[in-house]
């Protein structure tokens, strides 16, 4: 079936992008606008194709979600990548946490995790051990969670005179935000005018 190949391609794309979250057969079927059986055939086709020696991936099903993963036989190479201290992948988590703490301090671990969407205990520990982040008091309320903030070492490391020197984060959304606000203002003024005229 010609369509089968197209669908398998779509499914592989989707699994790739979905990463560790994986996708259920139902989600795949909705995303590809195909029926469930076709999706399952596509999954089987991808899995089959992955068995070739020249491939590095496989399809795994965990708790009802399908995801792509590396083949066990390539674990050594993958481990070398993940353990390589110069690898960007290693610093990503710490940098994310550091950015969040820098811009939102004082902030609790739970708040950091809410923003990142993943557990962040270890990156925080690393940052504290490195002296880039320190405890900066306790949050109000039950639990009195630890609040984290950046240190002078942080400023020094990144060559900042003070926290005021942190570049603005917002930039990226400015243009869209402006547009949205404009739209909003337009519809709002209309509403306002209507309301006003009723009086």
């Amino acid at each position, binding site marked *: 079936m010609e369509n089968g190949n197209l669908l398998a391609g779509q499914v592989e*794309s989707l699994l*790739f*992008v*979905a*990463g*560790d*979250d994986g*996708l259920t057969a139902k*989600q795949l079927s*909705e995303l590809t606008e195909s029926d469930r059986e076709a999706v399952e055939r596509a999954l089987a086709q991808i899995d089959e194709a992955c068995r070739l020696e020249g491939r590095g991936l496989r399809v795994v099903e965990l708790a009802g979600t399908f995801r792509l993963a590396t083949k066990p036989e390539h674990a050594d190479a993958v*481990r070398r990548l*993940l*353990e390589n*201290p*110069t690898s*960007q*992948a*290693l*610093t*990503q*988590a*710490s*940098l*994310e946490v*550091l*950015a*969040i703490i*820098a*811009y939102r301090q004082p902030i609790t671990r739970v708040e950091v995790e809410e*923003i*990142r*969407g*993943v*557990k962040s205990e*270890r*990156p925080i520990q*690393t940052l504290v051990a*490195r002296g*880039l982040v320190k405890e900066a008091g306790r949050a109000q309320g039950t639990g009195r969670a630890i609040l984290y903030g950046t240190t002078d070492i942080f400023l020094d*490391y*990144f*060559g*900042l005179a003070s926290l005021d020197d*942190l*570049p603005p*984060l*917002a930039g*990226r959304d400015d243009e869209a*935000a402006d547009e*949205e*606000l404009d739209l*909003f203002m337009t519809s*709002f003024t209309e509403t*306002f005018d209507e309301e006003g005229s009723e009086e």
Partner: protein
Amino acid sequence: MSYLVKLEAFEGPLDLLLHLINRMEIDIYDIPMAELTRQYIDHIHTMQVLELNEMSEYLVMAATLLAIKSKMLLPVHEEEAPDTDEFVEDGPDPRDELVERLIEYRKYKEAAATLKEYGEERGKSFTRQPAEPSLTEGTAAALPEEGLNVHDMIAAFRKMMERKKLRAPLMTRVTRQEISIAETMEKLVGRLGGSGGRAVFSDLFETGERSELVVTFLSLLELMKQQRITVEQERNFDDLTVVLRKEVL
């Protein structure tokens, strides 16, 4: 309103000139200065609403056009003692510099359009975030001793925001937490009361999240409409101060 839309279509005087040249279907190397100047000035007459700052750039160009036009009207001076040959050097065409600028600008304007297409094509391919090293045992995140700067940190943050989009719940409408305007209005009045009846406008926005921003803004407008607050501003572009009206206290 219609001219406002038109305005936004131009990226400055050079862009406007290119537009006019295009529309007039004239040779950029032989611009009829009188006609172009007339059309240009006509056009900026409809642009009075522009910020002065931006307007000045258009006006400087108008002056330049007029200068070129008048230079071209001057009779060409006969060179004294044309002992070399019979051809008299006219001197540089007064339009040369303008033409150079227009061509230079047009080059990048076209490049911008090509880049845009590249960006759109690139936007059809998606990558994924690197695998979380925390998922593998025994790999502690280590920061290199050097070579990282603030921009690396921000890049990391940006990547995370991209990834967050990805992890947003699938196929379920995100139910936005409704913050009611009535509630926010009361909260604002409370806050103003608590700070002596005055507060800096921007301080009233707490989280900076868009929904909060919008609701707070709406609430402020509603409070103004009900004449429970007034807004003061000392000079243009100063921060606004929101003032709770005495009778409401």
